């Protein structure tokens, strides 16, 4: 029986990916002075879009995010390709997106609770 629909699972997955992405960014920032370290990024949106297009969002939990080396970043003289400003921008963007997902989820949960309370 599906009372809550798929979107709770999708939102939970998006929040989980957000936390993962934060970890990858934090790892990049921690390694900003490590010689030879290549900046990494999390790829999820393409898999997510595929699932969205093919209407398979029901199993959103099973979608996997991949950690890859970012190819766009310019490599510095010591072989390191972490750029602090870029990572900060990504981190802030990710932080805001997490806030969006969390607010939507909160709204949904509130409505579900209203519905339950109305039935009592």
């Amino acid at each position, binding site marked *: 029986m599906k009372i809550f629909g798929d979107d709770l699972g999708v939102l939970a997955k998006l*929040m*989980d990916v*957000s*936390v*993962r992405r*934060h*970890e*990858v*960014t*934090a*790892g*990049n*920032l*921690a*390694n*900003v*002075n*490590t*010689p030879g*370290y290549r900046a*990494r990024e999390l790829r999820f949106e393409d898999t997510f879009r595929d699932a969205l297009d093919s209407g398979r969002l029901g199993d959103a939990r099973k979608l*996997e*995010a*991949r*950690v*890859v*080396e970012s190819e766009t970043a310019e490599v510095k003289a010591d072989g390191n390709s972490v750029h*602090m400003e870029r*990572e*900060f921008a990504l*981190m*802030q963007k990710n*932080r805001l997106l*997490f*806030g969006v997902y*969390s607010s939507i*989820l*909160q709204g949904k*949960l*509130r409505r579900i*609770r209203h519905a339950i309370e109305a039935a009592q």
Partner: protein
Amino acid sequence: MELEGIFRGMTLSGAGLDAERRRIDVIAENIANANVVATPGGEPYRRREVVFETVLEGAMEPGSVPGTVRVAEVATDFTTPLSEVYDPKHPLADPETGIVRYSNVNMSYEMVDLLSASRSYEANLKAISTYREMVEQALRLLEG
């Protein structure tokens, strides 16, 4: 997500904080010893530098931990030449040439390094506070 996973973002940035603090310690040591002519071994002080390395934990597999950082070694700088000052009256001057050998610490270099280390420290601190905000926001979902 397993419970230890919740704090992984903090452990990561914590490792970054620790590494950068070690770097600041070594820079402070260099600056403090900038004018040391004789260390216990008899030689002038030689500047030291931390070398960072990434601790990889299957970083490229899906859903795995991104690499944290640690101090691989504190290396002594033997390539930068010691500075030589002509001062025949100095007790440790070479009796023949009158030259005193001072450490190879270069103040401007250390200051730039210190600035970079302290900015990197702040970056890790910022990452921790952002992560904290996210976790707190997620926890507020429990309140309804």
